[in-house]
């Protein structure tokens, strides 16, 4: 079989989706062909990186709280309406159904506009004062969009653990026409490296903005996550999304804002920033894992490992946990690897930073899964930080 034909099967081979005949052809060919082995390594690293990337990207993605209402409204307006009026109209029940539908439409409309505040379905709104001010702010971050510009400013450059974080966001009408913003303030979230930490649901207010006019709102973050636990010192990203905009008398759709600013929470004693060469090895079931070095910075810790032997088919899954001194234990973080002659080098990134006086990093690779070979672990390491 030619390399070209083998090449077309390599991703299916890694995914264990080839038949026995194809498997034999590939496994007979690979030991004789360096080019195809290299190709296999590249497929393996790309697919594993892709798995990680997709999982990281999807981690913070959730539909808006309005999603069900949108579906319900569509179903009520298009499906039920026509079913009622084309299918059921001939039945005696229509005499009851029509008044009920009309009442539901009226109540639904009032509900949607906030005229019936008692019917707001228990939605949380951001408990902050709303003020309308001229557009004269001195922004730290501005995102210009189709009809509004949004600016986000924090009241301090960095915060100590437990301090109240004040994020002031300002939306400016950058068109020549009046705008109406609905569902205001917008849904806002605080995340770290793509993982959602705390969300603030959208509000129900309507704001009218003249051309050039701005409105501001303030989010107060108590440094707790959605589970009510204090977050670790680190850099967090603030993003806001979806404000329904009406331009003049015609709907102009929804504005969507993404990352706006960052919030830095620092250790009172500062973050440890250095590189420690470790070179500690541990062997479990014939697999040797060497912790080569630890890189500590104010935003994250990276941990580098070398694994031997070198599995050309790549790694299907890898899990870790870690803690610093007697702090909380944290779960999986993102990782990547490259193939070297001496083995596979792994890098675990995105670990929370460590305080300057930390003594020990406990890092455990709880499981390494090699396709068609098996699972290994745990590999446990202690790194002296001082």
């Amino acid at each position: 079989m030619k390399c070209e034909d083998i090449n077309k099967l390599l991703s299916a081979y890694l995914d264990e989706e080839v038949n026995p005949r194809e498997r034999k052809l590939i496994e007979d060919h690979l030991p004789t062909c360096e080019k195809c082995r290299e190709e296999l390594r590249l497929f393996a690293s790309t697919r594993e990186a892709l798995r990680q990337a997709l999982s990281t990207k999807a981690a913070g993605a959730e539909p808006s709280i309005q999603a069900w209402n949108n579906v319900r409204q569509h179903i009520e307006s298009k499906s039920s309406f026509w079913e009622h009026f084309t299918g059921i109209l001939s039945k005696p029940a229509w005499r009851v159904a029509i008044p009920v539908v009309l009442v539901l439409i009226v109540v639904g409309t009032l509900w949607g506009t906030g005229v019936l505040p008692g019917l707001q379905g228990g939605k949380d709104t951001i408990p902050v004062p709303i003020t309308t001010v001229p557009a004269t702010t001195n922004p730290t971050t501005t995102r210009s969009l189709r009809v509004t510009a949004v600016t986000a400013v924090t009241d301090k450059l960095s915060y100590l653990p437990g301090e109240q974080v004040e994020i002031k966001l300002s939306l400016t009408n950058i068109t020549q026409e009046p705008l109406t913003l609905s569902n205001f303030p917008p849904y806002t979230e605080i995340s770290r490296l793509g993982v959602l930490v705390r969300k603030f649901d959208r509000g129900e207010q309507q704001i009218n903005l003249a051309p050039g006019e701005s409105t501001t709102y303030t989010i107060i973050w108590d440094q707790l996550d959605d589970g009510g636990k204090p977050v670790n010192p680190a850099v967090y990203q603030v993003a806001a999304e979806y404000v329904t905009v009406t331009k003049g008398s015609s709907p102009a759709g929804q504005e969507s804002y993404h990352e706006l600013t960052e919030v830095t929470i620092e250790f009172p004693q500062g973050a440890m920033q250095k590189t420690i060469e470790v070179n500690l090895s541990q062997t479990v079931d014939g697999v040797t894992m060497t912790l080569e070095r630890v890189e500590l910075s104010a935003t994250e810790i990276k941990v580098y490992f070398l694994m031997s032997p070198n599995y050309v088919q790549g790694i299907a899954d890898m899990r870790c946990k870690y803690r610093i001194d007697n702090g909380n234990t944290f779960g999986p973080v993102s990782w990547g690897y490259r193939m070297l002659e001496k083995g596979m080098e792994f890098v675990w990134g995105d670990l929370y930073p460590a305080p300057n006086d930390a003594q020990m990093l406990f890092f455990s690779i709880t499981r390494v899964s090699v396709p068609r070979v098996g699972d290994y672990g745990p590999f446990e390491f202690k790194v002296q930080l001082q």
Partner: protein
Amino acid sequence: MKDLASNKWQSGDAAAFEALFQQYKNLVYKNAYLITGSREEAEDVLQEVFVSVWRSRLTFNSNKGKITTWLYRITVNKCLEKQRKKKLACVSLEQVDLPQTQSSDEVLVNRQEYERLIEAMNSLDTKHRAALVLRYFNDLSYEEIAQTAGVPLGTVKSRINQALKLLRGQFDTQRGEAPG
């Protein structure tokens, strides 16, 4: 897994349909988000998928297939419709010279690099992106992907192979251009 709203939602019970929505909204949304690359479009797709599910609820037969396979199929179709409407200038893999083998020292260490990889996915058309998402995010077998996409098994194999290869080339190009 037994669906929360089995039968009841098919007979038009709105509360059971809401339960079905709550059970699968994240699955549909996350897939749509990964395939389209846009939260706004994912929100639209989520809505369109469940409106379709409601309208065609009588056509679903749980004895013939899993509801997740049905939801994946509708989600992918809605994403394809969006792409057709937008008429995006996507790369057609059939017209592209696949990249030559790159060097092997590839380290993907952090979120920024993952984002560039996701960015590289934008160079693929929706059919190929969907195949990658179904395989490497949902862990569907090639057979399940074939059922979902309504294409032969061989097409799934070649789509995944081509997509991974092109992705690698695009990612390497972007990494070469990235600062630092």
